[in-house]
């Protein structure tokens, strides 16, 4: 079963992207990523650029509305995602809890929905 770990980070965590390699938060992330890959559960994923780079599009009354900034107006912002192959939600929650972002931001765990994909892609 595949799960997406949606990683939400605080502004302080986003700021570490410019920090030197020795930054403990980055160090924790390197160790976490390596552990996940070596556990053989990593399917894919990527970090996202900082929220300031986001642009949100809506079409209202047939007109395009473009907003400079992310969709959600929250302190913690989506910072990246990982897709993991795991036997159960419990296992996914274990891995989410080990994520360095879980103790400073939040990690949302969601199963992927292959059924829905089939209905869309036919």
């Amino acid at each position, binding site marked *: 079963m595949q799960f997406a770990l949606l990683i939400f980070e605080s502004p302080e965590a986003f700021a570490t992207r410019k920090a030197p390699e020795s930054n*403990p938060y980055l*160090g*924790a992330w*390197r*160790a*976490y*990523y*390596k*552990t*996940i890959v*070596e*556990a053989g559960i990593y399917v894919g994923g990527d970090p996202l650029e900082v929220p300031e780079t986001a642009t949100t599009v809506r079409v209202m009354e047939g007109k395009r509305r473009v907003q400079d900034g992310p969709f959600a107006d929250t302190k913690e912002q989506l910072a990246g995602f990982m897709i993991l192959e795991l036997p159960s939600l419990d296992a996914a*929650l274990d891995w989410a*809890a*080990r994520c*360095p972002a879980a*103790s*400073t931001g939040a990690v949302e765990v969601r199963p992927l929905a292959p059924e829905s994909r089939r209905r869309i892609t036919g």
Partner: protein
Amino acid sequence: MNESQYTQRTIERVARESYGRLVAYLSSHTRDVASAEDALSNALIAALTTWPRDGVPQNPEAWLLTAARHSLIDLVRHRQVAEANESTLLLLREESQEAMLSAKFPDERLKLLFVCAHPAIDPAMHTPLMLQTVLGLDAVRIAHAFLVSPTTMGQRLVRAKTKIRDGGIRFEVPQERELPQRLDAVLEAIYAAFGIGWDDMAGVDQRGRDLAEEAIWLARVLLQLMPREAEVRGLLALMLHCEARRPARRGADGRYIPLSEQDTQQWSLPLIDEAERHLAAASSRNFAGRFQLEAAIQSVHAERLRSGRTEWTAAVLFYEQLIRISPTLGARIGYAAAVGEANGLQAGLAALDGIDRNAASGYQPYWAVRAHLLQRLGKTSEAADAFERAIGLAEDPAVRQFLLQRRG
């Protein structure tokens, strides 16, 4: 404290102390735990309105029992359709009179504990059921500790209680023949509520659910009901030893402090003494069970408070016995760590290498102990790899921070 505060406190105290006894007694014949709990909460609500007005009754527990029983009769009558419940009603009424005559009623909590940890009940629900029916914790609190939503936990509890009522699970203390295994399930469920299994060298086995106080309370209840069972004392001693070190496990700034570096002055002497008393009482019987051995290992560590040093050879011996009867991953890694201290780092590493790598690869303490041994052996790059894994598997940010610093 004014009168109403006093009444309020009394209700809270009686509720806490009598909850399990009342639920156990009220459900022991009907097996309907959910109705017993509903009836008791109705009785507590009644107490909240009646006691401040009429004063706290002479025997608050008996008052609650009578009120809960009336409520239970109403509940059963309300729900009943089947004939079987007629006999339940009759039973309740007869007993009602009996209990009116004497303020005392039998303590059925032991049966209730065995029901909660019955093999027919999903093992994952053993602990939540005990916390709710014996201690009266609400589903929200339990859900929080078990990392699920309150709705989910509520549904699971309802399902488990329905199984108890309708599944033919008897309220009884198991026969001699079954007792060891059934008691083990009860002990496991209590231990599963406790927070930390063991911690050393920043390998932390986060076994339980961080409900240390509740777990200790349950073990005390069990001991009161089964004073002759050595393993019950063993479990209580184990938890008291771990609990005694809680204040020393963190620095003032919240940083993690491994066992070997803890300030022993911060350990709780009364808890250690109590643990030692239980351990001594347990070991006066011949057979040393798993919890007694785990407690004995913790007792070796506690000895550092008095002697200033750790008798690692003694720890190794207890671990050897423990592995013989319960070869868990945690025990084998604890053994390797102790061997590393007693017989040299290389020997410790060899013991660690004896563990199946596949089984251990997702277990944080394995990598923490490995990293620690390799680093002290001067194998820097191998140590760095092990540290990475220990950090990657760490859940507690303080432990993660500590390991990052150690790795250098």
